[in-house]
């Protein structure tokens, strides 16, 4: 239980950080994924070690994931006060949201993507009046062509 509570605080703290901040909680331990408060964590065979990584890309749509401190499971609503505070501060998941990497009790590793890498299908009316579709990342889905992508190719084939 102590382990799980600590995990919940670490995750909530990660959500409370400013968007885009480097939240990797590197520890002095040899394993880069170990958290600093290893004393509060049961042995690696029992505990869940959490590392939070910043994610590439701008923030976009909201898909939330939280850890329930009572059972260590993922849920889609904030459970602890820290998590509720973090949500209130406007941190959403989606491209750019922190990716939470967890060492599982069975020795495997899981990364909670929090909306990163989702693919969006966007439809455009081409100059020919026909509907054309293209897969975008969620961050750019539905947006008109804009400068920072330079000469983003049109979804339809050239017509002249």
């Amino acid at each position, binding site marked *: 239980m102590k382990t799980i509570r600590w995990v919940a605080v670490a995750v909530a703290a990660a959500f409370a950080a400013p968007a885009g901040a480097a939240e990797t909680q590197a520890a002095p331990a040899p394993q880069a994924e170990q958290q600093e408060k290893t004393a509060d964590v049961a042995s690696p065979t029992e505990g869940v070690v959490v*590392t939070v990584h910043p994610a590439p890309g701008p923030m976009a749509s909201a898909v939330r994931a939280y850890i329930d401190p009572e059972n260590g*499971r*993922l849920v889609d609503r904030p459970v602890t006060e820290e998590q509720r505070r973090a949500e209130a501060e406007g941190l959403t998941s989606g491209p750019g949201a922190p990716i939470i990497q967890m060492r599982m009790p069975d020795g495997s590793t*899981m990364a909670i993507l929090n909306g990163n*890498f989702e693919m969006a*299908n*966007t439809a*455009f009316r081409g100059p020919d009046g026909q509907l054309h579709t293209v897969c975008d990342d969620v961050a750019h889905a539905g947006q008109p062509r804009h400068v920072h992508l330079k000469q983003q190719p049109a979804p339809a084939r050239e017509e002249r």
Partner: protein
Amino acid sequence: MNFVHKSLASLTLLAMASTASAVTITVVNTDGPGEGFNDPTAVTPLASNPGTTLGAQRLHVFQTAANQWGALLEGTVEIKVRAAFNPLTCSGTSAVLGSAGAVTVHQNFANAPVANTWYSAALANTLAGSDLGGTAAGQEEINSQFNVSIDTGTCLNGAVGWYYGTDPVADVPPANRVALLPVVFHELAHGLGFQTFTSGATGAFLNGTPDIWTNFLADVATGTTWRNMASDATRAASAISDPNLVWTGPRVTADQASFLGAAPNLIINAPASIAGSSVAQPAAFGPAVTPPGVTDDVVAALPADGCTALTNAAAVAGNFALIDRGTCNFTVKVANAQAAGATGVIIANNAATGLPGMGGADPTITIPSYGVLQSVGTAIRGALATQTVNATLGFGSTLSGTNGGFVRMHAPNPLVQGSSVSHFTVDAFPNLLMEPSLNSTIFDEVDLTLSLFRDIGWRAVGDPDPPGDPVFANGFEP
């Protein structure tokens, strides 16, 4: 040409013969009362959708798409797809249709084929034989949402809503509706593992660990897979290296001939001095060229850009017209050539590299046309000064959408986030389900998508027993 289309009907017998179990894919409805999948608005049932409410019809489409994938893939662990209809971005000219992706990725789980490698949750669970992320609410494997605003009639001028039929033959999609099933079918494939988690922009692995796609993405020029490339920068360069980014997986490579046609080529038959075959881009308008192609002599059109009525119609009539790209639309050029009596059109590019796009729409055009390299156009025009040129709008010896014997992945420059890398090339012919531009007519054909799934670790229903993918048993991993 005969293509193997793995539709549901053809796979039924395989499913019955195999001892393996098709995976169960369940749609988890996360909409609130009275909205989205729970919308109580009464609607008329369709031949291929028995739902009597809007919500029920939406759910039927979703579950149909899920069942289609479930019937194709083996697994004993239920795959849960979190799904909702939400108001997403939409305007008169563009709209997000929907999105999907894996909720989690996993590495070093029980039975993981490749160590220290990320796998999408659905595939990881299937390989592990257990639900690695848990089974409670909020712990689904795939997240998805689709745009409820499409049904307001305010998105995409002229589109009145989604089309909820699941059979394009029994229920022909109206021109003013957007077919939902192909979109869901395509997006679910991403969630099931048709994507890399390596950044195309930076080349960086997710949290420093490669995903299973990096075993098979490769640069055809160097033969190096993404996993083995020396740096992130090298991978980032590879992500924009059309036509050099290829998929080297053995299943896709073995199956490509069953799903891809010969690449369109302009074949110059005479004179011998310029005879040969070169890549060509068929027009998006006019009749499609079918094997063995169409052959005729070539006449250079006047004016050379074909943007006004041809002044040498008498010479052009009964022959192919050679026209330069530029100044006006391709459809205008071909229409003018058609009016002059041309039997086909060859449009030479006006840039040193690449092919003309040959896009556009004109239902009045009845002759075929190909776009060709600038150098080819120049050679033809030069030969025409003194000789008769005879050409065929035909096909080459290589398969479309391939390079070096491998199927190409989408790698345009500049990078297109969300499209690049995690899709097959747009040059594949016939169209593949997992190209970046959705073919709205693909309702249940999975083509090379299923082959790629097998490359990354999925077992298809009907794969031979006992378990033990011969690919990995033979040590394909580089």
